[in-house]
């Protein structure tokens, strides 16, 4: 029975962490859905979101005010990135756009610690650290709260795609030229998707920052988020949640059992292996749409 509880405990905590990965991956999916552009800057956006919220609290804002400030600021940053950088790249080869977002990632990853100071910051949003004990299982309270909040936000994103604005985004993701011809402002839709990616980044940054502190290491979430986004299929919101759960559970459970057979420290490499396996077995992910290219 102990074995069962252990597995359950690892899985539940892993699943909750996975939901938080899903929140980071949401930013990648939102942008990909609207514009088929790879958003490799999401890791750095998460970090910047956390830094901005921390800065707001540091300047005397109460937590309930600082969070909206961070979210609004990140929405603006996302829109700004699209307006200044991405819009100029329309029509350029994919490799250029990928490199541009990667360049932004590196730029922000260096710039934010240089501006706000490199020491790890505490971002306290009032989550109690005492674990919740169910039977013999210890559930991390911070993970539980943040995981549930993440799930809520992802659900909100799914609902958003049913609204008028969301339908506009879906149309744009389906066919940009056709959307244009029926009068949908394509640039604005893509801008909104970047703004929403910024919002997802801010939320993820605040939640992750409250757990592991705010410094540049938050941007390393990029590789986990990419694993989640790719496994889920780059344009699926449901995929993000499912893949987040899968990656989170795998990452929490597998290293523990592998350690017992003598392979240690596998935690960092699980996400990469998930990416590799997905690309080999099912490149379009669990819920992704398979694209057919025409000359």
């Amino acid at each position, binding site marked *: 029975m102990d074995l069962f509880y252990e597995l359950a405990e690892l899985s539940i905590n892993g699943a909750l962490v996975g939901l938080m990965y899903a929140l980071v991956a949401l930013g990648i999916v939102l942008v990909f859905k609207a514009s088929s552009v790879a958003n*490799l800057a999401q890791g750095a956006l998460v970090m910047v979101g956390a830094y901005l919220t921390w800065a707001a609290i540091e300047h005397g804002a109460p937590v309930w005010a600082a969070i909206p400030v961070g979210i609004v600021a990140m929405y603006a940053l996302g829109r700004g990135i699209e307006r200044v950088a991405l819009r100029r790249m329309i029509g350029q080869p994919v490799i250029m756009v990928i490199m541009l977002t990667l*360049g*932004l*990632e*590196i730029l922000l990853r*260096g710039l934010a610690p240089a501006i706000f100071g*490199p020491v790890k910051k505490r971002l306290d949003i009032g989550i109690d650290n005492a674990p919740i004990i169910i039977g013999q299982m210890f559930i991390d309270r911070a993970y539980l709260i943040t995981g549930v909040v993440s799930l809520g936000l992802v659900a909100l994103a799914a609902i958003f795609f049913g609204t008028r604005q969301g339908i506009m985004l879906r149309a744009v993701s389906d066919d940009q030229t056709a959307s244009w011809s029926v009068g949908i402002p394509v640039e604005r839709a893509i801008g909104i998707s970047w703004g929403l990616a910024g919002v997802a980044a801010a939320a993820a940054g605040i939640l992750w920052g409250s757990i592991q502190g705010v410094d540049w290491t938050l941007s390393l979430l990029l590789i986990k988020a990419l694993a989640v986004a790719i496994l889920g299929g780059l344009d699926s919101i449901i995929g993000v949640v499912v893949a987040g759960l899968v990656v989170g559970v795998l990452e929490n459970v597998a290293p523990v059992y592998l350690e017992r057979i003598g392979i240690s420290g596998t935690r960092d490499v699980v*996400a990469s292996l998930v990416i*590799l396996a997905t690309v080999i077995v099912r490149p379009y992910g669990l819920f992704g749409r398979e694209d057919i290219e025409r000359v």
Partner: protein
Amino acid sequence: MFYRLAGIRHTTYSATRQLYPIPFDRYLLAVVVVVAIAAPWLFSPLALNSYLLPWVIWSTAALGLNLLMGWAGQVHLGYAAVMAIGAYTAIHSVRAGVPFEFAFILAGLASAAIGFVFGAAALRVKGLYLAVTTLAMQSIVDWTIVHVPAISGGSQATLQAPTLHVLGWPIDTDAGRYWFALVICAVVTSFLLNVTRTSLGRALVAVREKDFAAAIIGVSPFKYKLLAFWCSSFIGGVAGAVLAFCYYRAVTPEQFHLEVSIQAVAMVIVGGLGSVLGSFFGAGLVLLAPIFLNNFVNAIAVALNLPLHAEIISHIPLVLYGALIVGFLLYEPLGLAKVYDNVRNYFLVWPFRHARH
């Protein structure tokens, strides 16, 4: 006036197809080659060891990556991992008694083989998926090196490189190591200069421009992409081995982290995708700019009496790489090579600008 075109008449096909049809380009190249060979006497040992030597080695690596990114149009975010495989293979095989000449080839082959495997996996997909797969490759190779003691000698270990021998002669002077790196660089450069004119080069460009269109005219994209992966990884492996033997003279996992991959990508983009000359420019700028910028920021901090955190200094190269990548992609997507080309085109007809059109 500088690039004189007067009196140049091509009367044979081979004359029109030579690498440098304009004499001034040839003289310029000759001067650069002479300076490069004479560098140990021209420059101080400090300049030779900390600027020129890494520049030459990184140019070799950038050329290899440029073959893949510039000519074949495939993103590779794990190039440092490829170089790490080369470095570790070379050091281990030399320690096991393999002669140096073969160890370097072995290094290339090992990198090429592993790069090939990841390439084959990645080539089922393209664009973003390829970028992410190579990113995954970087972290898997990093992890393997650190966690397999037989490769790294333990997670914190540094493997010392034995003294380089070429054809039985020990090479243990700064100048000797520099010349060794220079020879390798020259071989790779001439390969890349010529590959553009071969069927391989043209096929790669066709695949880059539109892979299914290339397939329709009978150029198999899969085959040529794999070939590009193979060649580029081979060059990367050799460059990694040279880096380990000539520059660091030791090898640790930290030398080949993700940051180094990003540095290599920055070199290619800043220099110019698909340009041999650009790879040299890019490697030079990306290597040297952080040094000068660091000195500059330090000088400002001292002058203005600002307290400067050591961590902030260490973030400067990262900011610079990011800014360079973003800036060049937005304002000069073809990189420094295009800047040089513009200058050259201007001087090609200067001062008779009206003659150009």
